[in-house]
């Protein structure tokens, strides 16, 4: 029975790990995209 606990724990770690990492990458990307838009606006959008 203890064996199965290890099995569940290992599966949880692998999939939670992959998922959290991809989620983190996703939010990183969203933040950068917003920064990029803001910078573009500052550089090109506003009148001189």
């Amino acid at each position, binding site marked *: 029975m203890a064996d199965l606990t290890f099995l569940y724990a290992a599966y949880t770690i692998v999939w939670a790990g992959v998922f959290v990492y991809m989620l983190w990458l996703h939010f990183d990307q969203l933040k950068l995209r917003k*920064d990029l838009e803001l910078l573009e606006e500052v550089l090109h959008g506003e009148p001189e």
Partner: protein
Amino acid sequence: MRPLDKVRITLLVVAAILTLVSIYLAVLYAPTHTTMGDVQRIFYFHVSSAWVAYMGFGLTFVTSLLYMKTKDLKWDVYAYSSAQIGVVFCTLAITTGPMWAKAVWGVYWRWEDLKLMMTLVLWLVFIAYLVLRANVQSRRKKANLSAVFSIIGLICIPLSFAANRLWSQYHPTVIATEEGSLQASMGFSFGIALLAFTILFIYILLTKIEIETMRETVEELKQKVGGRHG
């Protein structure tokens, strides 16, 4: 939509489907291992994570060499991206490994097993690589120093294989049975799991590279804006 986005979305969909299939195969289709029991099902994803980690580290080595040859920062971005993914998957492999080992060998870690030690050393080397990158300010310096470091980190690995023969005189290596006793259905499940993780790796790598390229652009634009207002 740019063509690269299409490729990435396709990869994500394929990876997701293959992942679900491989979980099904690993949990329900593959037979229970005769000596190790159900806990052997950790093996499919443990080994796949380790495989992705090795791919990541290997790619870092190759792209570091390419960076040193061409001095193109593109290669440095590739090296950094694959190193980070390597560390993440290596962490997964290192944490799931002992759970399997505890159930099968009765211990969490075998200090005489070259494979385990090699993985631990690689993990530490690439954590140090990420620490180094986080602490160098100049962009060019960061690329140069981390390329040099990843090369010295990996260059003595082949020699360590040779050295293992020497150290195993002190610790007789127990012959591992996990590959030897694979049944065909297990092999098939393992193959699918490996494929799923490989495609997942390519997808994450492309995403990470895009993020890092974007970060470079943001930094450049920030300099520009700062120059105009400052």
